[in-house]
């Protein structure tokens, strides 16, 4: 596939990543990832799809250092994950906002944990809150916000640490269809302003095509990359692009890849 990346501009490099873990309740070993290799160039938006349970979230968590790979390596800008801790941020599937903090304090959490004092953190978070469209809600509590607004705070919390790499774990999965579409467009608007490198996990193929510069397709477990499809649709994209003929062709292509994978998994003992 076309993955014209030069190491000079490469940001995230995953090489032959494997991950096995013990399931305590069943005394069984699960192999979540095997030989997963992936390179993401700086400033690109990469989306990742795969059959459910294929280990895409596990891979994201490995990049976030929430789990450790049992094989292979992951580097960011040529340096280890430990060395680049403060260059990554994550947007969680469930907004995971602290109910006891206001919008402002939730958004400032990453900065505060890096030792930025309260006043400076507040000053730095203001423009980010504005960028995600929540100006005026600084003092609101999460339970006063809709699901879409909570995800905006989740995004603001990640963006305010000015990460080099932004990890997004199905952040719109729990939203209703209309809000999801709207948030996708909003994410595009925000990303056009920040141009941060993004790895975005989703199980929605249209979402993957709409957002991504590339769509990475994973196999069913143990997950590895089976296709890496560059999406050559002009940016900035608005939601009308979803009615473009090329858009549906990309969707078709990914669908068929996933179907083949599912079928292989169903017929037993492949991969």
């Amino acid at each position: 596939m076309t993955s014209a990346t030069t190491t000079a501009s490469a940001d995230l490099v995953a090489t032959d990543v494997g991950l096995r873990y013990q399931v305590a309740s069943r005394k069984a070993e699960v192999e979540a990832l095997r030989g997963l290799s992936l390179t993401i160039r700086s400033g690109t938006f990469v989306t990742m799809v795969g059959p459910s349970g294929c280990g895409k979230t596990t891979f994201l968590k490995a990049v976030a250092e929430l789990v450790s790979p049992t094989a292979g390596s992951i580097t960011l800008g040529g340096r280890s994950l430990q060395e680049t801790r403060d260059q990554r941020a994550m947007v969680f599937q469930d907004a995971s906002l602290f109910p006891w903090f206001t919008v402002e304090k939730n958004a400032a959490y990453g900065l505060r944990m890096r030792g930025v004092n309260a006043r400076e953190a507040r000053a730095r978070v203001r423009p980010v809150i504005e960028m995600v469209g929540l100006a005026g809600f600084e003092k609101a509590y999460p339970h006063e916000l809709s699901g879409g607004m909570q995800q905006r705070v989740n995004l603001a919390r990640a963006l305010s640490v000015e990460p080099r790499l932004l990890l997004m774990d199905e952040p719109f999965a729990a939203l209703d269809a209309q809000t999801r579409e709207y948030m996708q467009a909003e994410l595009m608007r925000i990303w056009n302003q920040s141009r941060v490198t993004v790895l975005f996990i989703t199980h929605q193929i249209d979402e993957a095509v709409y957002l991504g510069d590339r769509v990475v397709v994973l196999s069913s477990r143990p997950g590895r990359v089976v296709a890496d499809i560059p999406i050559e649709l002009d940016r900035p994209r608005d939601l009308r692009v979803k009615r473009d003929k090329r858009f549906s062709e990309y969707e078709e292509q990914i669908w068929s890849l996933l179907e083949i994978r599912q079928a292989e998994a169903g017929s037993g003992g492949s991969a």
Partner: protein
Amino acid sequence: MTAAGQALDERAAAQEDGDDGRLGSGRSWERLVWGVIGIVSVLVVWDLLTRTGLVSDVLISSPGGVVRAARIEYESGILWSEIWATASVWLTGLALAAAVGIVVGLVSGASRIVGHVAEPWLRLLYSIPELALIPILIVWLGLGYTFRVVIVFLSSVFYIAINALAGVRAVENKYFEVAAVYHASPISTFRTVIIPGAFPYILTGLRQGASRALVGAVIAEFLAANNGIGFMITIAGSTLNTSRAMFGVALLGALGIISGELLRRIESRFDGWRVS
């Protein structure tokens, strides 16, 4: 477990109250009226029974008798000092129990190893009726102020600790993941995730602990006091002054209701912290 079960009930109750705004408030108004009618009618029947002489008011007193006893007690000028005698022991013991119980509960919840060591002890001590320790405590401490405070302390500390522990356990894992992703130090995690996450449970523990502590304070006064509401009831009982004894019981009820209601109001302010 009691603490968790109760918390669930309360969450459900809070949702019920919040859901149907107007209907709900109409119902709570209705509830108040019927509650008052229920209490008043029992008092009226009680009064009538004693007035008609069907039952002896020496044995069970009467609402009028209790009011007269209240007036005598008030006019004697020692009513407030009796109430204060009970309240000071109660609040001192409860404050100590809160300080110890909250710290023990939070640390047991936050540190896996401390938790493994402390939890069996907490569960054991939680299930022992503390009042069974009274004979030993008398040997150790004698009958005095310290004895009473220790009884109050023991009556409530394990409730408070177990609830705080349950509170930490109830903090959803996703919040710890957020702390981990943003590299919060263990102390920061304790401060920003564990304490606020467990807070609603801590308040529930304090409320339950407070009522248990009041029972402890009164029992201690039955045995080892020369003042306080419990002492007043003992004396009134042994001199067949049932009206005075009933008034003492009513006073305890009032203390229990006031403290419970106060803490419940504080708790309800933190309902938003329970929902995710």
